[in-house]
């Protein structure tokens, strides 16, 4: 592997620029995270983050919305915008020579949005359409409810919002949300690919120089309800999820749990795939994954199966969760470690993937974690260390959600 060349700089306004030079690529990619996630909405404003994100892209600085889109497309930028609990993010991959101009376009979005009043109804209507479409996406609906039940307000909120809340929003709400949240303090810009660091740093300093302020919103936490909830739906399949606490990405024990969940669910030889799908043919999709907020995390499991086999699927899933806590085996761990390390090498072919990792490192850890350090952490995982962790942290405070024609019988630990 080529030695890693990473850089970081914190500007006076609080914006952090992190970067990785990958001079074997022709592309560059960026991720801009701003502290404008949906957790900063009030419950009555659910969807405001997404609506604001939509509106800032409808004209800014010297461009109207059509110019914004056509300039980005002519520069060859494949871009995206997203709202999560913590952040509103913009990102994109492009031929490296376009990077400077693309960043300048996004700086205008962030600093000088027009918020054209004549486009508000269109943007609002688009967000409402997205919320309605979500009603038909049963697996997605299930996982949104699972987050709500597990994390509660405001961390479990979905950025899609609700039709009722979206209908009540006004342009003023959007402008206020923008003023409050689109701030450089704690914002992170990550860039990876074919870059020239001194030039990039100077340019970013310049285009974001007038950006000031911080998002000082105090969040009010509600204790999570956990336990079991069923949502009735006229569907062929029952969608089910069980969730339980796990360390956040910043905690040292994160990788013990990540290793255990890897054994449970990474790949076709994992325990869940083998026991639920391969041996019993109970479902097409089954998985477990570690999810992390800044200071807490959870494991979310999922299976989708036809109604008459749903109880058996849940029972087998639950048995596998319990069996995991009896410990992992040496050979399954060894396979997982090889697999993760192979992916770390192949990740070097993707500027997008590296930019995402840099941004995540800075957000969770407040520093960049060298790939070598990550490889050492993976190497240091052992059957003993994982089983020791699991023995000390049995699953508790569980939550479960099912969606389909009938509720299921939950294990005692859940209800």
């Amino acid at each position: 592997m080529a030695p890693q060349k990473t850089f970081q700089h914190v500007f006076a306004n609080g914006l952090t620029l992190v970067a990785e030079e990958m001079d074997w690529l022709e592309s560059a990619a960026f991720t801009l995270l701003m502290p404008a996630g949906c957790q900063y909405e009030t419950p009555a404003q659910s969807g405001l983050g997404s609506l604001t994100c939509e509106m800032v892209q409808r004209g800014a600085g010297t461009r109207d919305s059509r110019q914004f889109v056509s300039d980005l497309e002519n520069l060859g930028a494949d871009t995206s915008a997203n709202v999560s609990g913590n952040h509103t993010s913009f990102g994109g991959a492009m031929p490296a020579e376009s990077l400077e101009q693309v960043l300048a376009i996004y700086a205008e979005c962030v600093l000088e949005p027009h918020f054209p009043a004549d486009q508000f109804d269109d943007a609002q209507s688009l967000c409402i359409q997205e919320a309605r479409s979500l009603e038909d996406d049963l697996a997605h609906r299930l996982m949104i409810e699972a987050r709500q039940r597990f994390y509660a307000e405001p961390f479990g909120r979905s950025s899609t919002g609700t039709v009722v809340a979206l209908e009540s929003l006004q342009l003023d709400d959007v402008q206020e949300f923008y003023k409050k949240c689109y701030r450089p303090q704690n914002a992170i810009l990550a860039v990876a690919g074919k870059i020239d660091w001194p030039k990039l740093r100077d340019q970013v300093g310049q285009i974001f120089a007038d950006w000031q302020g911080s998002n000082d919103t105090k969040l009010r936490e509600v204790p999570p309800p956990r336990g079991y909830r069923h949502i009735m739906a006229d569907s062929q399949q029952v969608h089910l999820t069980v969730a339980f606490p796990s360390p956040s990405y910043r905690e040292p024990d994160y990788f013990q749990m990540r290793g255990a969940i890897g054994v449970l669910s990474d790949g076709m030889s994992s325990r869940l795939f083998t026991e639920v799908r391969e041996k019993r043919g109970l479902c097409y999709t089954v998985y477990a994954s570690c999810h992390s907020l800044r200071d807490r995390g959870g494991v979310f499991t999922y299976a989708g199966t036809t109604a008459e086999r749903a109880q058996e699927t849940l029972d087998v899933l639950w048995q596998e969760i319990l069996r995991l806590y009896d410990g992992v085996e040496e050979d399954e761990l060894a396979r997982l470690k090889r697999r993760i390390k192979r992916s770390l090498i192949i990740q070097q072919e993707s500027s997008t993937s590296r930019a995402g990792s840099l941004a995540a490192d800075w957000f969770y850890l407040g520093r960049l974690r060298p790939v070598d350090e990550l490889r050492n952490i993976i190497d240091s995982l052992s059957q003993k260390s994982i089983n020791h962790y699991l023995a000390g942290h049995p699953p508790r405070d569980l939550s479960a959600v099912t969606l389909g024609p009938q509720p299921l019988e939950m294990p005692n630990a859940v209800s």
Partner: protein
Amino acid sequence: MQFLSHRLANGLEIVCEANPHAYSAAYGFFVKTGARDENDNIAGVSHFLEHMVFKGTPKRSAAEVNLQLDDLSSQSNAYTSEEQTVYYATTLPEDQAPLVELLADIMRPALREDDFETEKQVILEEIAKYEDQPPYNAHEKLLSLLLGSHPLARSILGTVESIEALQRDQMLAYFERRYSPANIVLAAAGAVDFPKLIEQVENLCGSWPAFEAPRETPVPTPVHHTRIIAKPQAAQEYLVLGSLGPGANDEDRYAARVLSMILGDESGSRLFWELVDTGLVEYAALSLQEYQGMGVFMTSLSCTPEEAAGNLARVREIYAAAEKDGLTEEELTQAKNKICAHLVLQAERPTSRMFSVGHGWIQRRQYRTIREAVAGYRAVELSDLARILQRYPLSDFATVAIGPLEKLE
């Protein structure tokens, strides 16, 4: 990057875009078979067989296949389309030999009876999953409506009835009719050791018996009817529209892809500005599905039921305006820039290149460098787009609507 190829005596071809600077190497067996090569008695067998290929060989159990694939690759999977079944994996260069040995071995599956019955349940679950999930298989339903009894109208997953009735021996017979080495291409890209790959594939696959695996490619007789499928529990209405377009071997395909990007890309297109940007739909896009001998222009929309009829009329107007007044130079330039930048990004991923090389070879027995593909798109002119719209008018189409509506007006 260097293009390399080799043909075994039994007809199996190996094609490779070697890039010694890549970190990874990707390999894929492309079998020229899919739903179009089935009949009613074995509907869904291509896709079911794709699952069974992972269920073991004379020398490996299903569990061993899964375990070794996980251990030897960073990514591996398979898919079945109307006309191809593809098995692929990406790994590091040092694992080429064991990975290729494994992939070659699973291409001769054991098709054990008990595995067949268990996997049948998984296939039935997959059918149930897609029946529950928007757009509720609307694309297959559109092809069926548009193409009637043409082989390309066949469903990839099959039906609950056809899968339940399917027997292991029918699958074996299908395998023996379609999985001829002369009907298979091994595509590779990235940090590939090509001389070793040839040697290995000669040893592993050289003894596979060859036979003819012909495919029927009748001329379609499309019908532009409307079919409304009521699904009262859905919140949104899902519309898919389709009409014929250039096929995989048509030299107009570059121009046709540029045309569908201008009219219906997910961002920056006419559909985007008229329908998505205005909030009239949640989603709208036009794409060209390229098949052997024919193509299908397919438009997908999702919107509120109240707006469905209006949006259908708007789409028709957008297409009619393009047919009547043409496209603009600005639109053409923007679409070309978008496509060419995407090709450059794709060049960095051996896995994407492997798909591109394998697909091009199985469809056309043709390899194009990124540079040649870029030149192909750059050469497209407005007059090419006009010619395509004249040959394949978009404003007249078959329509499938799935959602709360019982009628579209």
